């Protein structure tokens, strides 16, 4: 393998690893905030216990999110020095502001975890709010750099020199709001569904322990509500993301949809795989005219196909599958939320049937998969560009060889950390069953983390 391929695989692996913990680091604080607020409102101690247990889990996850993010940040400069040179000159504001968000999150996370017993309830809520804001802000800001890669703005390259730099124009590049919104909404949704999975799993296992069962039921209802709302928002916003591709990165949309010929009344191909030879999507369900409508809100919209672009600009064609998988998961989870809502609120059934519980258990892992598919689609679909129509990935890569050894070492460390994090979480929650927390006398001190 050449070094470019290894560098891409290494960076992609790092990001795919980081994003699991980072997404939960954005999503779970919001859930903790809701639990704290519900506790203050209802005075139901179950919600305080929920906040405490979720915080413990979050602390462990951040123990991996932070070092893997540190790796991501430094690796960006180590593996893609050519890219970071441009980013440094033009787009360093989001990185810089992200540091402040990290500080806010780090300071208040330490305060919330290590000083919970010494601060007032109001201060506790303020701390969780700041943790949630810090985490979301860091996601928004880093995503902004990704948005800039797709829709660069605020500079020109003239004879190899970077000129006409306006860092704020770069910051507010055309896809900033929509892309950042999509990432944060999908992170909130994923955090909620992962907690829903855990609650559903424990409900199945503790049917006979009334007290514990009720606790998990409350957790499930809260997470399903939040997850349902955000899955709907994610899809609405995802639609806008696709329209943005239509406008700014047409060959990416064409690859995502497997569209070769430029046309109006373009059909939407769902499923199947893109075949380069026959220039079609095999085994797909086609919905006539739908793609044109989705891309531009009218059937007359002309959607450009891949044949409009030189072949060496084509993204890899398998991104069609990734895109479909992400969207499929999105619709599946919306459907699941609606069924849960109808069952519980409209049909007023007190318990969910077994098959539905198993669907809830699948919701968490599915949304994490959605995140992974979405990102690999977004980054791989940008190829061969690292900065769209400005810089090729091959021109950004490091000149140092020997990347293979490093790749193996990093993957080994990610495996070790994955195993350790699972063991530690299992160990802790086995040692501290919910039943113990629920039985504790309700005094302030017992809330110590």
């Amino acid at each position: 393998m050449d070094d470019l391929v290894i560098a891409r695989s290494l960076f992609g692996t790092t990001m795919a690893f980081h994003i699991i913990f980072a997404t939960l680091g954005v999503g779970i604080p919001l859930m903790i905030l809701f639990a704290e607020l519900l506790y203050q409102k209802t005075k139901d101690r179950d919600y305080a216990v929920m906040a405490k247990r979720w915080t413990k889990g979050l602390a462990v996850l951040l123990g991996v999110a932070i070092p893997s993010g540190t790796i991501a940040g430094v690796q960006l400069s180590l593996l893609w020095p050519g890219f970071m040179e441009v980013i440094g000159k033009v787009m360093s504001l989001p990185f810089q502001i992200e540091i402040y968000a990290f500080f806010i999150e780090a300071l208040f996370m330490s305060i919330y975890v290590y000083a919970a017993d010494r601060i007032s309830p109001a201060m506790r809520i303020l701390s969780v709010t700041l943790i949630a804001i810090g985490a979301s802000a860091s996601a928004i800001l880093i995503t902004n750099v990704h948005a800039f890669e797709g829709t660069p703005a605020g500079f020109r390259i003239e004879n190899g020199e970077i000129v006409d730099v306006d860092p704020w124009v770069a910051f507010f590049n055309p896809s900033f709001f929509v892309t950042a919104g999509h990432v944060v909404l999908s992170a909130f949704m994923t955090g909620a569904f992962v907690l829903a999975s855990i609650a559903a799993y424990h409900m199945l296992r503790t049917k006979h322990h009334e007290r514990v069962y009720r606790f998990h039921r409350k957790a499930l209802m809260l997470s399903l509500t939040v997850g349902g709302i955000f899955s709907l928002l994610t899809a609405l916003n995802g639609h806008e993301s696709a329209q943005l591709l239509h406008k700014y990165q047409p060959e990416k949309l064409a690859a995502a949809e497997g569209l070769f010929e430029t046309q109006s009344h373009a059909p939407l191909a769902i499923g199947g795989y893109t075949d380069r030879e026959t220039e079609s999507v095999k085994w797909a369900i086609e919905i006539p005219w739908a793609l044109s409508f989705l891309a531009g809100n009218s059937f007359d919209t002309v959607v450009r196909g891949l044949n409009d672009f030189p072949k060496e600009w084509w993204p890899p064609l398998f991104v069609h599958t990734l895109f479909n998988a992400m969207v499929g998961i999105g619709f599946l989870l919306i459907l699941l939320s609606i069924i849960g809502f109808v069952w519980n609120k409209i049909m007023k059934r007190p318990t969910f049937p077994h098959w539905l519980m198993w669907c809830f258990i699948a919701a968490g892992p599915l949304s994490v998969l959605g995140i992974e598919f979405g990102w690999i689609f977004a980054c791989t679909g940008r190829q061969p560009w690292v900065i769209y129509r400005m810089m090729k990935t091959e021109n950004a890569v490091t000149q140092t060889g020997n990347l293979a050894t490093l790749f193996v070492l990093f993957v080994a460390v990610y495996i070790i950390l994955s195993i350790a994090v699972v063991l530690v979480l299992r160990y802790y929650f086995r040692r501290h069953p919910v039943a113990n927390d629920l039985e504790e006398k309700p005094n302030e001190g017992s809330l110590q983390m």
Partner: protein
Amino acid sequence: MTNELIAITLIWGFIFIYAVMATMDFGAGFWSMVYINQEKTKATNIANRYLSPTWEVTNVFIVAIVVALVSFFPGATFLLGTVLLVPGSIILLLLAIRSAFLVFAHITKEYEKALTYISGITGIIIPALLISVLPITHGEFIEMKNGTPALNISRLLTSPHEYAFIGFAISSTLFLSSLLLADYSNVADENDAYRIYRRDALILGPISLLMALFIMLTMQREATWLYEKMMNYLPWLIGSVLMFFVAGIALFLPSTKHKEMRGRPRLAVVAIVIQYFLASYAYGKAHLPYMIYPDVTIQSGFTHPNTFRALFASYIVGFLILFPGFVYFWRLFMKDQRYVRQKNEG
């Protein structure tokens, strides 16, 4: 001051703060490993109590340094990224393992012992690797290979200059952290722990001073340009050594707190921080204008002026927002007697 100078001063400031905080962090990990079996003195508890809430904040500083470097001096990124790929990656791997296991150890007490060893051992290796960035910037280990710059690792690993830096990193990590932990145990009224850490500081102080001299000796031979320029700042270096002796004396003065004990650790800590400040100022000033000798200077690598202005504005706003947070954090963990003195943490 020129924009370049403002930027490099800010970075130097970050590095200084990180150096002090990280020394503490890494050293505390090491001491909690060394004293893991000393049940009665609580020396380990003291180290852990300090370490738990701070590592996350310390970690942000390392990210802040990298980001500040890339955003202020993007022109240096290419060369720095290329030559630091291998050492940088190893540092990252060790940091990742260490940070993760630090958190795990805090959550699951039964694994604490094994995990303490991980953070203790990496606590020594990481500073040694981190400081290697300095001799690399002195230029002698970078060579051109097929038209691209590369780090000559075998030359680095056989250089006395490199080992002087490594020796200095390890000894001063242990020195500074034992001194700070002595102060922390003094505040917490943990007299046994105080005695242990004071003793360690007394042993390690002279060693780290020797290592600093060793750096100067090897620098004279291996990075002559830097040595000669540092000699222009001789008064700063002498002042630095003087502060070292002030700290030494402070550790022998009668204690203000407990009649039967010796030492005023707070005074010693302040003197040592001033010592490091003076010495690193002289080093940094002599290093200018080179970021990497002789290819990259602060002028050649500097960012676009518009970007600099925007970044600078963001620094001011960021500082105003974060300052109250830092003060609150400090009061909760460094001054709040309920935290510092809690009897049996864990």
